C-alpha cells in the first residue's frame, strides 16, 4: 500500500521531522515493514508559475503569439502557439537552462525570427495528463490569490512528496490502517507528534427532494447503509490536484465522481459507490438483500457474475445493481451523461464480503477494506467528505434527505486492563507516563478520566483501568490487545530478554524421530545420497512408472496438472532424479525418507485423516553390474542394525500390482521372518519399459520400506554370544542342485542337518557351467564355519560334521558335491 507523507501531514500538528529513512525504520519497528521509499516530484521544482501580462500576434507566423510573462522578478518574452492563453492567467513557465519533467533541456531559441526566453507548458508536457490541446491554466485549478509569480508548481500542485510503500500483511487485523488517517494516527504516536482530526462538518441539506427509498432486508449482513442523491453533477476530468494526489499513491484517474469516491476511501478507509440515479428502475427503490440463485450481474469490469443466495447484493426493484461491498454493476455505472448520482456509503458483514469475493474470484480495494472490518461510524463522514468535494469539483446539489439505516449499531467496546499484566505477561516494565501517553495517543480512553493511574497505584496488583475502545479499532477485543499496543509503541526490542525457569527433568525423547534419524544416518553410511523430492505428483510421472495416479489423494487447487496429486510411493521421484544424475555421474545410490499418503486408508493416530506412513526408499544404479544385490545388501545391513530379521519372498499377484515397475523374476517382497504376514516392503530391478520411460540406460535396483513396520519391529535386544577359545575351521563346499531350488532352500536343507558346532554358513558364489545348464542344474558354493566351545575339533569330528551336512543336502535336495 502506498502512503503519501504530504497527505499524512494534513493530519499532524507538526510536520514530520524525521528523515524518510528514519521514519520508515520507526514504522517498521512499531507497525509494519516499510518496503520502499520513493521521492517524487523533485523534477517539477524548476517549473514555475508565470503571469501572462500581454499577448501579441507573431509578425510572420499566424499560428503563434508573443506573450509577455512575469516570473516574479522580470518579464520574459515567450513564443507560444497554444490557443487558450489569455492575459491575467497564471501558467507553468519553464525558463532557459531548466528541464521538463522528462529531462528535456529548454534553451533560448529563435522561433520564426523572434527570440523566445522559455516555454509555457501543457499538461502533457508536464506529464500530468494527456491534454495537449493547450497550456495548463493554473488559475483554473487553484485560486489566483494563492499563486505567487515564480512559485514552483512542485509546491503549488503538491507534486513533491515522499511515498512509502508499506507491507499490508502485518496489517491484516488493522482496518484503520488501510487509510491515510489511520497511518497518520500511528505516525503521530510513534514520532511524538500530535494527531489532528479535522472537525469535519459539511451539512447535507437538500435543496429539493427526489424520490428514493432504501430497505435493508438482510440486516445481519449490513451493519449500516447511508445514501444521498446529488443532482446536476457535471461529470468531467478531475482537477489536477486530485489526479496527482491519486497518481502518487498509484490510483488511476477515471472521472471526478469516481476519483472522489476513491479519494475518500484512501483518506479515511470508507469505500463509497456512486450509482447513476436515472439508471435505477423506475420506482427508485433500493434493496439490500441476498441474491437469488439464478441472478446474474454484469460488473463494471464487463464480466458477467453468477450470483448465489449467500451473496449480498444491492438491488433496485428489478435486478441486482452491485455486489455489496465488492463491485458495482455496469448498467448503473456513472458515465459522461450522468446527471444525478446516488452515493452509497455503507458497512457490510466482513465475513460475508470475504466469502463472496473469494467465490467470485474478485478482490477489490473496497472488499479488501470491508473484510478487515471497517468502522460503521465512518459512513456519514464518507458521504460528507464526498458531497463536499463533488460540490466543489462537479457542482450539483443535494436532492434527498440523508438516508441512514443502521441496524448494526453497537455499544462502544470496553476492555478491562490490569496494569500488573504488563509485568506478568510481557516480563518487563513500561513507565506509567508512557502508558498514559500511548493509550491517549491511540485514542484509547479510560471510561472514567479520573481513573488514569497515579504514581502510587501503578503496578499495584489490583489496579484496573476500564478502557473505551475507539470504533475504528475493531481489532482490539481483549486485554492482551492492549498489551500489544503498549509493547509495540514502547518498542519490542526495548525489553530485556529473560529465560524461563525450569526443573532438571530430561525431555522425552521421541523414539520414532530417533529411529528415523538413525535410518538416515545408516543409509548415508552405506554410501547413499539423501534427496528431497516433491510430495506432489502428476499423471505423467506416474504413467512413466506404470503406476495409476488415480489411487492418490487428489488436490482440488493444484499449482499445475503435473503437481495435482499427493504421492503414495517415493519410487517415481527417485527414478526421475536418477535419470537426471546419470547425465553427469556414473554410479551412485539415492535415498529418500519421506511420508506418502494413502487415499483409501485411515490414519491410526487420527481417523479423520488419510494414512500417512513414512517410507524409506532407495535406489542404486550404475554400469553393467546387476544392482539387485547391492540394494539388498543395503536393506539387510539397515535392518540388521535394528535387529529385524526378514525374509525375501517371491512376488505374488498383489505385490506385482503394487510394484509394476519391477521385473517380477528379479524382485522380492520383504517380510518379517517371525511373522510373515508383516510386509516391510519390496525390492527389485526396474523393468526395461520403465527405464526407457525415464531415459535410464543403466540397470537400476530400488527398494521401498515402510518405516512404520520398521519402527514396530526394531529393537535393541542384542543377544550377546561369548567368544569360543578354540580354533574355528572353515570348509568350502560346492553343491550341485537343480536350478529350481533357491539358495534359501539349500540353506534350509543344510540347517536341518542339525549339525552340532556348525556356527555359520556363508554364501560364496553361484556357478552355472554350460554342462550344468543343459542339465538344468547349478552349483552353489558355501563356506561353513565350524567351531566348538569346549575343545579343539579333531579332523575326524570336522569330517563327521561336513558329512552330515552333505548327507542332508543330498537327502532333501538330491544335491551332489561338485568334483
Amino acid at each position, binding site marked *: 500500500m502506498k502512503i503519501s507523507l504530504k497527505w499524512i501531514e494534513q493530519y499532524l500538528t507538526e510536520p514530520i521531522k524525521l528523515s524518510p529513512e528514519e521514519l520508515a525504520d520507526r514504522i517498521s519497528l*512499531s507497525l509494519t515493514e516499510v518496503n520502499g521509499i520513493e521521492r517524487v516530484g523533485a523534477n517539477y521544482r524548476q517549473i514555475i508559475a508565470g503571469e501572462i501580462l500581454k499577448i501579441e500576434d507573431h509578425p510572420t507566423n499566424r499560428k503563434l503569439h508573443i506573450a509577455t510573462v512575469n516570473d516574479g522578478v522580470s518579464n520574459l518574452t515567450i513564443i507560444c502557439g497554444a490557443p487558450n492563453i489569455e492575459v491575467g492567467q497564471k501558467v507553468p513557465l519553464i525558463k532557459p537552462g531548466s528541464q521538463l519533467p522528462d529531462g528535456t533541456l529548454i534553451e533560448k531559441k529563435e522561433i520564426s525570427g523572434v527570440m523566445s526566453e522559455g516555454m509555457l507548458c501543457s499538461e502533457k508536457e508536464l506529464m500530468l495528463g494527456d491534454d495537449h490541446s493547450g497550456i495548463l491554466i493554473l488559475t483554473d485549478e487553484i485560486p489566483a490569490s494563492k499563486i505567487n509569480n515564480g512559485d514552483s508548481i512542485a509546491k503549488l500542485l503538491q507534486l513533491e512528496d515522499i511515498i512509502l510503500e508499506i507491507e499490508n*500483511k*502485518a*496489517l*491484516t*487485523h488493522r482496518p484503520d490502517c488501510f487509510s491515510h488517517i489511520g497511518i497518520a494516527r500511528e505516525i503521530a504516536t510513534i514520532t511524538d507528534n500530535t494527531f489532528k482530526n479535522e472537525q469535519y462538518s459539511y451539512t447535507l441539506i437538500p435543496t429539493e427532494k427526489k424520490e428514493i427509498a432504501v430497505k435493508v432486508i438482510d440486516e445481519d449482513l449490513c451493519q449500516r447503509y447511508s445514501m444521498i442523491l446529488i443532482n446536476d453533477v457535471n461529470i468531467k476530468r478531475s482537477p489536477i490536484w486530485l489526479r496527482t494526489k491519486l497518481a502518487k499513491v498509484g490510483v488511476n484517474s477515471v472521472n471526478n465522481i469516481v476519483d472522489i469516491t476513491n479519494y475518500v476511501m484512501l483518506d479515511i478507509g470508507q469505500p463509497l459507490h456512486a450509482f447513476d440515479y436515472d439508471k435505477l428502475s423506475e420506482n427508485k427503490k433500493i434493496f439490500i438483500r441476498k441474491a437469488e440463485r439464478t441472478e446474474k450481474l454484469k460488473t463494471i469490469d464487463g464480466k458477467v457474475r453468477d450470483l448465489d443466495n449467500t451473496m449480498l447484493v444491492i438491488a433496485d426493484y428489478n435486478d441486482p445493481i452491485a455486489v455489496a461491498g465488492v463491485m458495482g454493476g455496469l448498467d448503473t455505472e456513472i458515465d459522461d451523461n450522468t446527471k444525478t448520482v446516488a452515493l452509497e456509503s455503507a458497512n457490510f458483514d*466482513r*465475513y460475508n464480503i470475504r*466469502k463472496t469475493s473469494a467465490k467470485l474470484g474478485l478482490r477489490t480495494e473496497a472488499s479488501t477494506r470491508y473484510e478487515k472490518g471497517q468502522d460503521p461510524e465512518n459512513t456519514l463522514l464518507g458521504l460528507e467528505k464526498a458531497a463536499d468535494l463533488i460540490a466543489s469539483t462537479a457542482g450539483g446539489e443535494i436532492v434527498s434527505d440523508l438516508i441512514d439505516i443502521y441496524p448494526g449499531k453497537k455499544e462502544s467496546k470496553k476492555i478491562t486492563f490490569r496494569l500488573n499484566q504488563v509485568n*506478568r*505477561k*510481557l*516480563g*518487563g516494565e513500561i513507565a506509567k507516563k508512557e502508558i498514559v501517553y500511548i493509550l491517549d495517543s491511540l485514542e484509547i480512553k479510560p471510561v472514567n478520566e479520573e481513573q488514569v493511574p497515579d504514581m502510587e497505584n501503578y503496578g499495584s496488583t489490583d489496579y484496573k483501568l476500564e478502557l473505551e475502545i475507539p470504533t475504528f479499532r475493531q481489532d482490539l477485543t481483549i486485554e*492482551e*490487545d492492549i498489551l500489544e499496543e503498549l*509493547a509495540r509503541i514502547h518498542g*519490542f*526490542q*526495548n*525489553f*530485556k*530478554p*529473560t*529465560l*524461563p525457569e*525450569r526443573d532438571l527433568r530430561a525431555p*522425552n525423547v*521421541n523414539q520414532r524421530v530417533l529411529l528415523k*534419524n538413525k535410518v*538416515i*544416518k545408516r543409509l*548415508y*553410511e*552405506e554410501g547413499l*545420497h*539423501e*534427496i*528431497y*523430492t*516433491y*510430495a506432489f505428483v502428476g499423471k505423467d510421472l506416474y504413467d512413466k512408472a506404470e503406476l495409476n495416479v488415480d489411487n492418490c*489423494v*487428489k*488436490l482440488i*487447487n493444484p*499449482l499445475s496438472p503435473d503437481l495435482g496429486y*499427493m504421492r503414495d510411493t517415493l519410487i517415481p*521421484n527417485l527414478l526421475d*532424479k536418477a535419470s537426471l*544424475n546419470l547425465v*553427469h555421474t556414473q554410479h*551412485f*545410490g539415492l*535415498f529418500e525418507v519421506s*511420508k506418502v499418503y494413502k487415499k483409501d486408508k485411515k490414519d491410526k*493416530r*487420527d481417523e479423520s*485423516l*488419510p494414512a500417512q506412513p513414512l517410507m524409506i526408499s532407495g535406489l542404486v544404479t550404475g554400469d553393467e553390474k546387476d544392482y539387485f544385490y547391492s540394494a539388498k545388501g543395503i536393506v539387510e545391513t539397515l535392518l540388521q542394525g535394528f535387529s529385524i530379521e526378514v525374509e525375501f519372498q517371491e512376488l505374488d499377484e498383489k505385490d506385482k500390482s503394487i510394484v509394476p515397475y519391477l521385473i517380477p523374476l528379479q524382485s522380492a517382497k520383504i517380510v518379517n521372518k517371525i511373522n510373515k504376514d508383516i510386509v516391510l516392503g519390496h525390492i527389485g530391478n526396474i523393468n526395461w519399459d520403465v527405464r526407457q520411460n525415464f531415459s535410464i540406460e543403466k540397470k537400476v535396483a530400488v527398494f521401498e520400506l515402510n518405516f512404520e513396520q520398521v519402527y514396530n519391529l526394531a529393537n535393541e535386544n542384542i543377544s550377546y554370544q561369548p567368544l569360543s577359545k578354540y580354533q574355528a575351521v572353515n570348509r568350502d563346499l560346492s553343491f550341485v542342485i537343480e536350478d529350481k531350488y533357491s539358495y534359501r532352500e539349500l540353506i534350509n536343507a543344510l540347517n536341518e542337518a542339525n549339525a552340532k558346532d556348525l556356527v555359520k554358513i556363508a554364501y560364496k558364489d553361484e556357478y552355472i557351467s554350460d554342462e550344468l545348464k543343459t542339465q538344468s542344474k547349478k552349483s552353489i558354493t558355501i563356506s561353513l564355519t565350524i567351531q566348538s566351545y569346549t575343545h579343539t575339533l579333531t579332523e575326524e569330528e570336522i569330517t563327521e560334521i561336513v558329512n552330515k551336512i552333505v548327507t542332508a543336502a543330498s537327502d532333501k535336495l538330491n544335491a551332489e558335491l561338485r568334483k
Partner: protein
Amino acid sequence: MALQNNEQKVLSIDSFIASLEELQQLFYKEVESIKSLTKLDEVRVKYLGRKARLGNLLSTVKDLPVENRKDAGGKANRLKNEFEQSLNNKLVEINRNLANKEAGKEIDVTIPGIEPQMGSIHPLTQIRFKVEDIFQRMGFEVIEPFEIDNDYNTFTALNIPEDHPARDMWDTFWTEDRNIPITHTSSMQNRILKNIKPPIRAIVPGKCFRNEATDASHEHTFYQVEGVYVDKGITFTDMIGTLQEFLRNYFGKDVEMAASIFSDDKDKIETRIQPSFFPFVEPAIEIMIKWRVGDEDRWLEVIPCGPIHPSVLKEGGLDPEVYSGFAWGFGLDRLVMIKYQLEDIRNFHGGDLRFLKQF
C-alpha cells in the same frame, strides 16, 4: 624310514662330531649368502627340517656307543639351537633391510587419496538434526506433524475462523476430501496443548506446502520448525531470551537481542524485532538478524513468533489466566540458506548430487 632301518652299524663319536662340524661350516657359509626370505626358508628347511641333515644326524645318536650318546645328543641339540638363533638373526636383518628399502621409496603425497564410498545427508536434514539437538538440550521434545491435516487443526483451532481474512496469509492447497496439505507446522499446536500436561516444551519440524509459484526464493514445499512453550508465568521476554539462546547456539555467536542496532562488536549477531501479524499469537513479532549478503549487511527475518493467543490456549483446554506461553514457526530452508549463503531455494528439491555432495 628306510635309511634309519638299514643303518645298523655302530658309529664312532669322532666321526659324529666331525659330521657336526662339517655341517656347522656348511651352514654358516650358506647363512652368510642368504639375501631373501625365500632363501632363508630354504636354508631353514635344509638344516632344521624333520628330514634335514641335522635331523638325520640326531637320529643316528642311538647308533653311537652308549657312553657317548648323551654328549653327542647334547652337542647336536646345542648346534640346532645355534642354527635357529642364527637364522632368526638373519630374519631380523633381512626384514630391516627390506624396511629400509621401503622407507627409502618416496611417494607423491600430493596425489589425491582414494575416495571411500560415502553417501551424503541432505543439508535440510543436517540442519534439522542440529536444530533438534539444540532444542532437545534446552528441554524440548520433538513431535512429528501430520502432513495432511484438517481445517480445524490448521486454522480454526488457531483463532483463524473460516472466512477470516487472515486465511489469505496462507495460500492453501485443498485435497478432494477438504483436508489440507499443511500450510504450517502450527497445525500440531492444538494437539500439543491438549495432550501434554504443562510445562509444555515441544518443537515440530515438518514439511509444509503453500500454493505459490516457485522461484529462487519461493517454494511450494518447504520446511518449518514450530515451537511451543507453555507453563505458569511465561512472559514475552522469556520468549525473546529462549529464541536468542537458540540463535546463539545455531549461529555459534553471541546474540545481542535488545542492544543497539549499530553495535561494533563483530562477534555478535545483531537482531531486531518487528511487529507482525498472526492470529494465533498476541502480539506477533518477527525476529530479524543482521547478516552479510554479498557485500552488504541486510536484515533478514528469521523467527516469526509471539505469546500464544488466549483463545488458542482455551481451545487447547488451558486456562489463560493460569497458563501462558509462546510459539514460533521458523523456516528451516531459510536458516540453511542464510547459513550457507544459498541463492536458490529450488536446489533443495532438485536432487542434483553435484549440489548435495557439497554439504
